[in-house]
């Protein structure tokens, strides 16, 4: 990447004003553009959101065997996700207890120990200190100082998704995921064995823009007709879908295509007819049979409904992949796209699924780069002070709250984004976030 064009946007935000950046009043919902360009807000987001909430760090299939590890970040802090010799998963801060060097510099691998490159201190893959080099320079009670690779206090998995929290206490992962668990289950059950894995390779992209652009976009059902016009024409050329039909289907009111805002800032887009035109798994009879046999016909329909699921603040579960948002700076973001394999669904089926996935997703694909381009367009635009508010009001007059407490509206509405920013405001202003 070449250097950024704008040196960091605005700075200076009074702590007690952070909550005012999200305004909700009679029929309108707005967020202030400062949240995309202000360095200090980015810093607060890292501590109050990423280093306070449960965040996704890895998928268990990335470290299947004892001794496997991969690295991740929690906010700005580097961590190692490691499976120890007993198979237990630890999330360790990647920092030598001695003088601060990282002890692991690869992104994935297999190691029973980590050795600091600076003075050779050695740690087991559960983080415990094996020993300091030239131990005689330290007193007798050195072993009692409690030196080790610090553990991220809370680590829990749900159906292969590993989450961690830097906060010492707070709600459990199960409590945190209560509102979105049903959807995670349906997503995992797309495998007839209920097991999803990720391969060694992933698509990764970076863009010179704020992380929340990606957060908002994955459950935005409004942009498809405009941002992905190119893909609609590709599908028309190949004879798969008529471009006008795609536009109409996205616009249709009264269809079973919903946007949902969930508890905890989660949200989803739920579309009965997976309108992208990417490989439609529901149309493969053998696969349908497998799912029906494994879970029953009624459950099959629930499982095979196309959903983009967002889990605040950094995880997306799409039909074909896991997407992880990694904020780097206020105007720089990495995104990782891990295509999934549905265990038990057959090699040919998974291969065809991956082929279609790659047509739309990835830095050289025919879909996702157009989204990224829009994030970047916005990153220039939000520097305009004259109209600093982002309008996230679409659908406020027609959304409703269902029996589960979810806000439900037309798939083109902005209720999922409103859920995100209510949660954003909660953490940015709460005592819990102020720890």
């Amino acid at each position, binding site marked *: *990447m*070449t250097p*950024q*064009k*704008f040196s960091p946007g605005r700075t200076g935000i009074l702590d007690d004003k952070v909550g005012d950046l999200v305004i909700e009043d009679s029929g309108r919902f707005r967020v202030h553009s400062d949240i995309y360009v202000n360095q200090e807000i980015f810093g607060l987001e890292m501590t109050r959101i990423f280093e306070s909430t449960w965040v996704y760090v890895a998928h268990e299939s990335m470290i299947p065997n004892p001794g496997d590890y991969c690295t991740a970040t929690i906010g700005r802090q580097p961590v190692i996700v490691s499976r120890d010799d007993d198979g237990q998963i630890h999330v360790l801060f990647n920092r030598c207890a001695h003088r601060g060097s990282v002890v692991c510099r690869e992104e994935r691998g297999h190691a029973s120990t980590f050795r600091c490159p600076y003075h050779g201190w050695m740690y087991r893959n559960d983080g415990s200190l094996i020993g300091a080099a030239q131990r005689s320079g330290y007193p007798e009670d050195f072993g009692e100082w409690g030196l080790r690779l610090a553990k991220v206090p809370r680590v829990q998995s749900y159906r292969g998704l590993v989450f961690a929290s830097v906060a010492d206490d707070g709600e459990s992962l199960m409590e945190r995921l209560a509102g979105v668990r049903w959807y995670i289950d349906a997503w995992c059950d797309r495998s007839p064995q209920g097991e999803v894995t990720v*391969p*060694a*390779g*992933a*698509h*990764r*992209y*970076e*863009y*010179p*823009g704020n992380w929340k652009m990606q957060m908002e976009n994955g459950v935005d059902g409004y942009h498809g007709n405009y*941002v992905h*016009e*190119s893909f609609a*024409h*590709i599908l028309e*050329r*190949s004879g798969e879908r008529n471009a006008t039909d795609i536009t109409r289907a996205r616009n249709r009111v009264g269809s079973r295509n919903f946007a949902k805002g969930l508890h905890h800032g989660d949200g989803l887009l739920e579309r009965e007819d997976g309108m992208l035109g990417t490989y439609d798994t529901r149309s493969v009879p053998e696969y349908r049979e497998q799912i029906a046999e494994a879970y029953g016909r009624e459950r099959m329909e629930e499982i095979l409904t196309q959903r983009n699921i967002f889990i605040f603040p950094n995880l997306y579960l799409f039909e074909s992949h896991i997407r992880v948002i990694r904020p780097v700076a206020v*105007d720089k973001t*990495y*995104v990782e796209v891990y*295509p999934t*394999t549905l265990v038990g669904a057959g*090699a040919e089926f*998974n*291969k065809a699924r*991956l*082929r279609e*996935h*790659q047509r739309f997703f*990835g*830095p*050289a694909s*025919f879909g996702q*780069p*157009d989204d*990224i*381009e*829009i994030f*970047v*367009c916005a*990153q*220039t635009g939000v520097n305009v002070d004259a109209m600093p508010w982002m309008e996230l009001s679409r659908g406020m007059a027609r959304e409703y709250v269902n029996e589960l407490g979810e806000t439900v509206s037309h798939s083109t509405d902005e209720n999922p984004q409103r859920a995100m920013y209510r949660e954003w405001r909660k953490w940015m202003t709460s005592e819990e976030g102020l720890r």
Partner: protein
Amino acid sequence: MTSTKQTWQERAELQLAAQEVLYREARLLDERRFDEWLDLFTDDGVYSLPITLSDDPREPALIRDSKAGMEERVFRLTKTLAHAQNPPSRTQHDVTNIEVGDLRDGQLEVFCNQTVHEMRTGDVFHVGLAEPRLLTARCRYLFVPDSGWRIKEKTCLLIDREYPIYNLTFIF
């Protein structure tokens, strides 16, 4: 017949012929003559930018295009409103380190390095535009000399293939 049994004159002739196609390919891409670029490939031609070196079909690639896929890619670039290419990329393909490998079953293996200087045109003040970028790869080609030196395989191993990439929507 393998390269080890060729005279250096024979090898020089093969290298010159391959180099001519490689240079031509570079120029066609840089001049945005994409339809002519497609014609460089055999009907069963493959254009790929892998991420891992594994043959595992579960592994994703940045690009794994059959001829039909390449045609779709060119269609997107020339006939649709692709935001990631609006404004379009300006490219300059530099081809170096051309090395002729084995000639087997009528197919000649050729290695080279390619550096692509890429820049989106447009308003210099805008984030992401008018910023020159460098992409570089080690490439392997399979030519079919008897079919007018058409390309059967083009595989480019980007130096940063598994790392975050901003925009690869032009043709490498």
